[in-house]
């Protein structure tokens, strides 16, 4: 029997939601289990096989000195590293602390601050090691994850769109909430992949998938001002799950 590719799933600072997307593959999961050896996936199994691994899926951001060290070990043992989700790809919601001083928060949250050892910033995996693929999203889309894994197994390039959320909206026939209702929407600057989930339910896009390539956040902000948003509103618009992704970070800082 030829050896199956070994898959490892690693968790750093995160909510586990993206790992759940893997378990959420349901019907496809059994088929997948026949195609890869799940060698390290603590959320699914306590069985741990030693490295090296063919593919490492990394969830979560780097927030502690230990994790900054551990991610380097993951890289050393992995042929391919792919980040899954906004935390691993952009620093996550916890990167909101990057805009303040984390030391101010520790005594508020923890009874014994002296036990807490944390880094100043929550940073994406790519700040620490070379990353081969990045799957954005909070959480990732399970179909995108499946497409990524299938592409690896079939030896082809994964089909991961680089366009804005608007394309999905128009293909679905969603009436644009920004134009028809004056609702601020990050869709035009946000990476596709969610299937335009929020606009389909008449909400502006929250930017869960982070900035698309060449995201023109300044122009969108100018229009949001025209729609009546204050600087503070614009800061909040860009400071969510991908607050530390560079175009969103710069845009929120410009309105602080």
């Amino acid at each position: 029997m030829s050896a199956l590719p070994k898959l490892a799933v690693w968790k750093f600072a995160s909510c586990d939601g993206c790992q759940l997307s893997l378990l959420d593959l349901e019907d496809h999961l059994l088929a997948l289990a026949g195609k890869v050896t799940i060698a390290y996936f603590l959320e699914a199994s306590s069985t741990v096989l030693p490295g090296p691994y063919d593919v490492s899926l990394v969830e979560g951001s780097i927030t502690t000195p230990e994790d900054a060290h551990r991610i380097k070990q993951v890289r050393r043992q992995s042929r391919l590293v792919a980040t899954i989700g906004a935390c691993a790809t952009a620093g996550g919601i916890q990167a909101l602390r990057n805009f303040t001083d984390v030391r101010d928060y520790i005594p508020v949250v923890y009874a014994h601050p002296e036990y807490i050892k944390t880094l100043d910033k929550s940073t994406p995996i790519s700040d620490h090691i070379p990353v081969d693929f990045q799957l954005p999203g909070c959480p990732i889309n399970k179909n995108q994850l499946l497409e990524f894994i299938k592409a690896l197994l079939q030896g082809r390039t994964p089909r991961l769109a680089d366009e804005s959320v608007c394309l999905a909206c128009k293909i679905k026939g969603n009436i644009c909430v920004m134009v028809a209702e004056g609702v601020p929407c990050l869709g035009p600057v946000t990476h596709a992949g969610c299937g335009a989930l929020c606009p389909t339910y008449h909400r502006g896009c929250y930017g869960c998938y982070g900035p698309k390539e060449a995201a023109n956040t300044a122009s969108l902000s100018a229009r949001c001002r025209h729609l009546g948003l204050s600087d503070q509103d614009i800061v909040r618009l860009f400071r969510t799950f991908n607050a530390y992704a560079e175009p969103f970070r710069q845009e929120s800082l410009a309105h602080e």
Partner: protein
Amino acid sequence: MSNLHMGDEVVLTAADLATLYDILMQQGFQAVGPTIQDGGLVLDVLGGPADLPQGWTSEAEAGSFRLAPRTDAAFFGYNLGMESWKKFFYPPRLALLQVQSRDDGGLHFQACSQEALPLALIGVRACELAALAVQDRIFLEGPYQDPVYAERRRAHFIIAVNCTEADAACFCASLGTGPGVTAGFDLALTEIINDREHLFLVTVGSSQGAAVMANLPHRPAWEELRQQARDLVRQAARSQSRALSTADLPRLLYDNYSHPQWDDVGARCLNCGNCALVCPTCFCHRLEDAIDLEGREAERWRLWDVCHTLQFSYIHGGCIRVSPKSRYRQWLTHKLAAWIDQFGTLGCVGCGRCLVWCPVAIDLTAEIPAIRGQQVKM
């Protein structure tokens, strides 16, 4: 009933619209037309004239669209919604092909069925007929016919509507594509609401249209009504505040590839692709293959695509249009210049959708004069 011919003008009452609908149903058509959904006008299946946005009007401007109630009960008292009719002939998402691997190691290819119900399009405006004619050239009249488009375009019934009011976004009058319809319809309606009567002046545009009208209790048109209809359409043309001058248009764009206005619009453009997606003539698409995990079954899909993405201009070795401004310039230059070289017609019909549904209100009727070095008078 009298024998009707192309060009004949007759009169229906508003109540006759239901009978017209019923006749089209009896002839096996599926009626589609504007409906109100989610605060917009959506082209969808009509259960009857009652599904039309009766008593509503549309207020469109660059970057903004709103529906508002009218003071009368007009069936067609609004202009254009976000969607155009192209979605029925050139669907946004379409399965083309299925492939299965056989046990003997071979492959089995199966084209997906493209059968579609014959449609009755109700409420098609002049600019939209012009847009359909442009897409006909692209999909039917070139060296390669698109079989999906050809099949869907084969059998249908078009009830056109003359615009008697214009939105602030309309500029069809400057391109000669509206607001009155001239060709490409089976029946054309002009809706006229007087003190006592709610009428439609109907122009017969085809033998198919004449046959349908013969089954309806129509009256011959009288001159005063004809004059009123002409005045309304003329007024809709005169009230248009936007215009696109086509003078020297291909040359202007080809000669001004480095005009500073491209930097200006490039700084505003989001590269989101909305202008191309709502454009009734844009036709770019991509093919996507979906393969199952086992590698035994595959599907090929066709999806709308836009020239505003980086990936769109990818060829071996990299992407050609990296800067955002180069992508907008590509879209506009193709639409207003290269389109003429390629298809013998302008790619713009003056419907204004690209400027209405641009999230940041980029307006080609302002960009072109800026490239000409003119100030825009609004």
